[in-house]
């Protein structure tokens, strides 16, 4: 049973991590807690579903297209909402509150367009039976989730750490003014970030839609809660941290169910968050500047 639970944990954790990647990216660069990330994640799922259902696109193509669609939605949200707020020098909570409005709009639009009902990918979109080793069961989606999450994370990590682009993004994160003075196309990179983050969110949406057969307009909300816990645990804006914290949360939840009680599963994420922050005030991997004056 433990082995099976570890597999469950790994795939659940990868979902959290994948969702959190885009979420933390936006926070890291734009300094915005984008509460519409859950809605974008949801739209990614619907986009792929529609493409598979109506255009009969192969899954991989539908997934790429869904990433494109959600990326563009992210871009649009940036252009219409976040950019004007940047230009107006809005206080730091304003963009977060605005994204709540965006999330409401997107969710209820989705509800109007697609209905409130659960949807699932057509049977046969992916092999549904599991691979068995003894009493271990692993599905194709589970493997897909883990692999895709890790690949996306490593790519993102390499970009952020090793490239000039990554450095520039981190520079913007700290001070757009300083970044401008370095000749960085700050607005352009804001767009790029919003696009990439939303595309990542969309990818997560597709994978979650595939693995849990529960595509609904509301699927983003619980994910958003977990995502928030994850990016904080990982240290805000820290890609590697988000990945590790996502996995960590997955393991914590699954092991809680396995060895403590499923009643406390949902409390585990935020409960741990609460405790960990008391010990490490900037998350598990957050760096602190000690210099005071």
């Amino acid at each position, binding site marked *: 049973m433990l082995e099976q639970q570890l597999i469950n944990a790994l795939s659940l954790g990868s979902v959290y991590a994948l969702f959190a990647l885009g979420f933390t990216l936006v926070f890291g660069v734009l300094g915005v807690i984008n509460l519409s990330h859950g809605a974008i994640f949801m739209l990614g799922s619907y986009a792929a579903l529609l493409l598979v259902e109506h255009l009969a696109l192969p899954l991989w193509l539908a997934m790429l297209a869904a990433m494109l669609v959600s990326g563009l939605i992210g871009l649009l949200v940036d252009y219409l909402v976040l950019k004007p707020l940047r230009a107006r020098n809005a206080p730091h909570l304003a963009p977060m509150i605005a994204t709540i409005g965006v999330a409401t709009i997107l969710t209820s639009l989705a509800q109007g367009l697609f209905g409130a009902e659960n949807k699932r990918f057509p049977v046969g979109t992916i092999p549904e039976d599991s691979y068995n080793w003894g009493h271990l069961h692993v599905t194709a989606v589970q493997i897909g989730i883990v692999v895709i999450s890790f690949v996306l994370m490593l790519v993102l990590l390499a970009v952020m750490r090793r490239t000039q682009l990554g450095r520039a993004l981190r*520079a913007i994160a700290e001070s757009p003014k300083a970044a*401008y*003075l370095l000749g960085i196309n700050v607005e352009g990179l804001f767009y790029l970030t919003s696009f990439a983050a939303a595309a990542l969110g969309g990818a997560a949406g597709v994978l979650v839609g595939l693995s849990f057969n529960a595509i609904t307009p509301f699927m983003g909300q619980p994910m958003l809660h977990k995502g928030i816990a994850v990016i904080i645990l990982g240290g805000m804006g820290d890609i590697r941290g988000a990945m590790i914290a996502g996995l960590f949360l997955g393991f914590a939840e699954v092991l809680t169910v396995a060895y403590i009680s499923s009643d406390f599963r949902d409390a585990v994420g935020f409960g741990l968050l609460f405790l960990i922050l008391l010990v490490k005030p900037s998350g598990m991997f957050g760096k602190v500047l000690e210099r005071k004056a």
Partner: protein
Amino acid sequence: MTAEMNTNATPILQVHDLAVSYGHIEAVKGIDLALNEGEITALVGANGAGKSTTLLAISGLLKPARGQVLLNQQGQQQDLIRLSPHKIVQSGIVQVAEGRATLTTLSVAENLALGAYTRKDKAQIAQDLDWVYSLFPVLQRRKDGLAGNLSGGEQQMLAIGRALMAKPRVLLLDEPSMGLAPLLVQEIFRIVQEINRTGLTILLVEQNVRQALRIAQHGYVLENGKIVLADSGVNLLHNPKVLEAYLGG
């Protein structure tokens, strides 16, 4: 204005009738400046005169109420006012801003690498990095540490070093000597002169008026958002008004 302006030198950057407001307060009230190619121009004035405001407007970080900032590009005059800040940097105008704008969460080396953001010539960048390290050895020692942990003066060095990494045509320096130890102040002025000799045009805002005017070919005095004096550096240095108002008699 009796200055015998050096007529040989062509202005590479001309500021014309620049006015900048913060809300209702007009901080810069329609000023004209000209930076001659390859020269150091000093801009001095009391606290709050509008020096930093002028520099920020040139760099595009503040949108002026009116005026032009003309850059001479191969004989063409280009107005920078409408450009976004990164385009202005790309056209070769780089600023070391007041308060340094150190990227505290990046390492020292990363700060310097970002200085060269607009450049593509890898080999040359590496050489320049060595040059900056030789100018400021402490930066090399601390290159992997977070820039935010540097002392005030160290951050100032980093800011200058980072600007040099951009290989600018025009360098705008906002109080580069602020917070530096005397030895280093000498060093900074020496470096400013040295890089100027490589052909770099420099606009130097300084409270260290004496030193600044000493190394500047031209100088402007800004008071309450208006240029009140413009002359050669030496002349200004001996101008009784300047002596009284800015050099403490």
